[in-house]
């Protein structure tokens, strides 16, 4: 039939997807920004040290005592303070944005990990086993989706003591927010994975494995899961920006990390009080959120196009 000419190298679907992704310049740009953000968050102390700024030190000498706003134009931008300083206490905005990226990304990543973990297991189990298991999990998803999440977050954060399970302060707050976001947004990915599993389960290669005597774990992990990794990856990438926004929203409402720890949502909430005298203060945190969400979305969209299971 087909004669092998020299060495035949097989290209896996992953390699093909990578080639396709490399051609998508917009997605690559998004990916580069995502990478940059991760680096900034990881090396926040180092970056601030090099620039010579700190996130929590007051600079009252740079504040106009009568107006409580920074002296000079554009939030008091200067060589010492590249993005200017806050009204009232004069903390450096650049440092707070850089440190804010840590909180934002940490919470977004951990919450996504949690919801993808729960969602994948629940979706695969519901889709593969079907029957009453499927009914039970699907109804559970409906209940979770109907939950008034923001109200629950407000109530829970108010009710939780200062110390819990050996955690306190910021780490307790981060854990709490990760739990709230992650534990209540798994049905979104769960439904997608359930649908994918349902359609994969009926494919003939699953029957082929069964007719060879494959057990359930083999079918789940060796036959089904490799086909589910692409959608999981895509929806995880698209879930991260949603979680960034959610975290910012919770911080804005005052249930995020506690001051003085910097977070973008908290900065926006302060800026909202000063928009008449210092309108430019809301620009840096707003832009940071905007760029992060946009970059993740563009990268996620590109990833989806590259991994599209319909194109063989």
């Amino acid at each position, binding site marked *: *039939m*087909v*004669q*092998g000419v020299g*060495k*035949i*190298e*097989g*290209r*896996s*679907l992953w390699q093909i997807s990578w080639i396709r992704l490399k051609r998508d310049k917009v997605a690559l740009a998004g990916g580069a920004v995502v990478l940059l953000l991760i680096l900034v968050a990881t090396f926040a102390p180092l970056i601030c040290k090099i620039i010579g700024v700190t996130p929590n030190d007051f600079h009252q000498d740079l504040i106009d005592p009568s107006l409580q706003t920074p002296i000079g134009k554009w939030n008091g931008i200067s060589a010492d303070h590249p993005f200017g300083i806050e009204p009232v206490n004069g903390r450096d905005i650049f440092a707070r944005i850089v440190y804010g990226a840590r909180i934002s990304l940490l919470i977004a990543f951990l919450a996504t990990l949690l919801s993808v973990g729960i969602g994948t297991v629940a979706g695969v189990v519901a889709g593969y086993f079907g029957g009453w298991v499927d009914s039970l999990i699907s109804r559970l998803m409906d209940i979770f989706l109907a939950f008034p999440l923001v109200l629950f977050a407000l109530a829970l954060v108010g009710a939780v003591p200062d110390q819990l399970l050996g955690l306190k302060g910021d780490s307790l707050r981060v854990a709490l927010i990760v739990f709230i976001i992650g534990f209540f947004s798994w049905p979104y990915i769960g439904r997608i994975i359930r649908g994918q599993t349902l359609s994969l389960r009926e*494919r*003939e*290669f699953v*029957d*082929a*494995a*069964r*007719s*060879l*005597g*494959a057990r359930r774990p*083999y079918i789940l992990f060796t*036959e089904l899961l*490799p*086909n589910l990794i692409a959608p999981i990856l895509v929806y995880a990438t698209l879930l991260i920006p949603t979680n960034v926004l959610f975290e910012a929203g919770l911080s804005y409402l005052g249930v995020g990390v506690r001051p003085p720890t910097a977070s973008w949502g908290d900065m926006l909430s302060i800026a909202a009080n000063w928009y008449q005298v210092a309108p430019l203060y809301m620009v840096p945190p707003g832009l940071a959120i905007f760029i992060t969400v946009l970059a993740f979305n563009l990268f996620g969209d590109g990833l989806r196009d590259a991994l599209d299971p319909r194109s*063989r």
Partner: protein
Amino acid sequence: MTTTDTDSTAAKSPTGEELLSVTGLVKHFPIRRGVLQRQTGAVQAVDGLDFTVTKGETFSLVGESGCGKTTTGRLLTRLLEPTAGKIVFEGRDITHMSEGKIRPLRKDVQMIFQDPYGSLNPRHTVGKIVGAPYKLQHVKTEGGTKKAVQELLELVGLSPEHYNRYPHEFSGGQRQRIGIARTLALRPKLIVADEPVSALDVSIQAQVVNLLEDLQNEFDLTYVMIAHDLSVVRHVSDRVAVMYLGKIVEIADRVDLYETPMHPYTLALLSAVPIPDTKRRARQERIRLQGDVPSPINPPPACRFHTRCWKAQDICKTVEPPLLQLAPGHQTACHFPENQPGGDAPKTGTAG
């Protein structure tokens, strides 16, 4: 519901030993409605089949879409569990055997699937796909699995170099060869081929059919071939069973079936095969069946073909015709069969 048991082995071919025997095989898929999932009906996909398959032969199941032939194939490989009836393979009753008990037997009964695009996992290499049987059945081969897989690839007409490639890099015909290689890995005794060529181009169909025949001669395989293409069936089969709405209406040797069909449905099916000869075509009368195949949820009583049969009389609506041997090796379930050896008189029920 089921036809008489007495005739189940009557058509057994005189030569060769029996490999598979099916008695009164039934598969109903329940239809459930409402919150409580109460059963409101059943799709009677397969409703009482009796046949035997002897070692080394090719036994074909033909019929139009929805007549239950694919379900039958899945019952024989025990991908589905029968609702009733009995499947005996090599003297062992596998009808309700548990998954754990049947696992070692799966080596002996393998399946070729219809859709060469769906039957290979797109994320696995050819090596992994064809090597899976060895891994799943813990079979050790001389020289390792890789060598065995490469030999199999050569056997089905592919290059051993294809070991590391992925299914999406192959054409439909090549994919079907990969599927056949996987099927052959464990040297099965019985292969259930579910429309093995119907998804392929006509030019490729012949190649794959010939490959299946060569493999049969080389490895002494027994095939249960499920098909709807009567010319393919004529080419490959030793014996043919015609199915209509979950029942077998006629079983016969290939030559008998094509030359002296007895059941009106078989006659109608055969008359629909195009003849590439204008002179002969003019002589043959095309039988056009009226209406559609009735729903298997609520099939007609007694003879299921009576709603579309031009010979139907009152008895066809009240008494189900049993599958009887009317000529040597030729069974038909009809009250008024065609081409009878003893003239066209109505049958009275004496099995041959």
